[in-house]
């Protein structure tokens, strides 16, 4: 056997260790800490998705119910806080959560590319890794791009054919009447569902919430949560297209 040069196959650190920041910022400097942040911010995003979906169900009660709900969001906290104050606090909190979630995802993706630069030459036979877990890096950006479009469509109105401030029901019907837009909303929500299916399970692992007594329920929770959020969400564009709403 030929002697191999030990320097050529030497093991050197692949990732650079940053200079430690003061606690608790140093937690975010490690991948395990970043996963904690992804789990907590993901939980905040799930909280938003549930409230958003529940509020939007008012569309089935008619225009005045939905518009009244939308106005209620702005008046939330009255008379203790100025109009829209609580709404903006929630919006800023959600924005911070999304920015941290995306930043952590991006830096972990880069780390994993450094540590796993070579893929197998032969075909992998995955046993446990499912389609959802392996497409998180694609469903995430799809959902992010969708959020930009969604805000432009129904919050700022730039992408909406006839945007009227405060007339939520009218704006939604005007937007979803376009078949291509309705289809896009459905597809983006399915991508979000795939993302949720893995994320809502994975967050328990990231936060160390693990007990043999209820571990099997974590997957059940993820499936039920995904169906509960995505089902109603995709029903809205379909209902407008079928003429049930509008």
């Amino acid at each position, binding site marked *: *056997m*030929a002697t*191999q*040069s030990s320097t*050529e*196959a*030497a*093991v050197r*650190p*692949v*990732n650079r*260790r940053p200079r*430690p920041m003061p*606690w*608790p910022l*140093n*937690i975010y400097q*490690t*991948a*395990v*800490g*970043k*996963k*904690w942040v992804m789990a907590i911010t993901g939980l905040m995003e799930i909280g938003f998705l549930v409230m958003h979906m529940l509020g939007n169900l008012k569309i089935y009660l008619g225009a005045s119910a939905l518009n009244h709900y939308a106005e209620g969001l702005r008046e939330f906290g009255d008379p203790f806080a100025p109009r829209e104050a609580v709404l903006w606090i929630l919006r800023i909190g959600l924005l911070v959560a999304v920015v941290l979630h995306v930043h952590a995802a991006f830096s*972990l993706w880069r*780390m*994993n590319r*450094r*540590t*796993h*630069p*070579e*893929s*197998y*030459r*032969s*075909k*992998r*036979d*995955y*046993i*446990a*890794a*499912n389609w959802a*877990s*392996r497409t*998180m890096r694609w469903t995430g950006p799809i959902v992010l791009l969708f959020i930009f479009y969604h805000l432009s469509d129904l919050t700022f109105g730039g992408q909406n054919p006839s945007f009227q401030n405060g007339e939520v029901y009218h704006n939604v019907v005007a937007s979803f009447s376009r078949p291509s837009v309705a289809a896009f909303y459905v597809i983006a929500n399915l991508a979000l569902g795939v993302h949720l299916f*893995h994320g809502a*399970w*994975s967050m*328990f*692992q*990231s*936060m*160390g*919430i*693990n007990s*043999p007594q209820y*571990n099997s329920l974590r997957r059940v929770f993820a499936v039920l949560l995904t169906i509960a959020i995505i089902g109603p969400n995709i029903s809205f564009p379909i209902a407008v297209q079928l003429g049930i709403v509008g």
Partner: protein
Amino acid sequence: MNLTLKVWRQAGPTAPGQFETYEARDISEDMSFLEVLDVVNEDLNDRGIEPIAFEHDCREGICGSCGVMINGQAHGPGFRTATCQLHMRLFKDGDSITVEPWRAASFPLIRDLVVNRSAFDRIIESGGFISVNTGSAVEANMIPIPKVVSDAAMDAAECIGCGACVASCPNGAASLFTAAKMQHLNLLPQGQAERWQRTQSMVETMEDFFGSCTSHGECQFACPKGISIDVIAYMNRDYLKSMSKNRKLGGQGLTT
């Protein structure tokens, strides 16, 4: 039975590599996969071809040196077996089997199917010592340990450091290895004195070399010892605690 083997051949760390096809004839179904490689190597030797280099030692699934990727699965299709325990009865006559080395940035290839797994040693080193009295072993029941705890610690301690978790992970993460090595001490009373120091330094050293866990769960099925990803959750929990404990304790003399 007769088999066709597609084996990764690479003369050295920087040499170009490619799959070579070899015929393995008259293979008994009672053979282990390593014995098939032995048969092929004897034939190659007779023909004046350099034999396939592969790592092996105990051949009974406890040394952790024989891991290779077989048909896209770490240690092949056997359930909770290392490559040396993989019986050929799991294959059929005429099967084509692809054999590839572990691939990860911190597992540089030495030759053919052999990779350098010493990044694992760096993680173990960073874990440091546990404080026990030297001399003869203490009476076994002097330290009361609940049965469930000793069972859980034993499950984690089963890790043989073969690297299948890293090899099977789409991210090249060593979370299962590190968590198993950490938790078998963190769970026991003997491991408590240095628990938080060990947790922080092992996680940080792991991240010098390996990727991050995204909970694919692939590693627990690749593991020849069937170590569950539960230990990764315990590691994540202990890591967050360690950051706050080490801050309060002045790091227990922790130098990073």
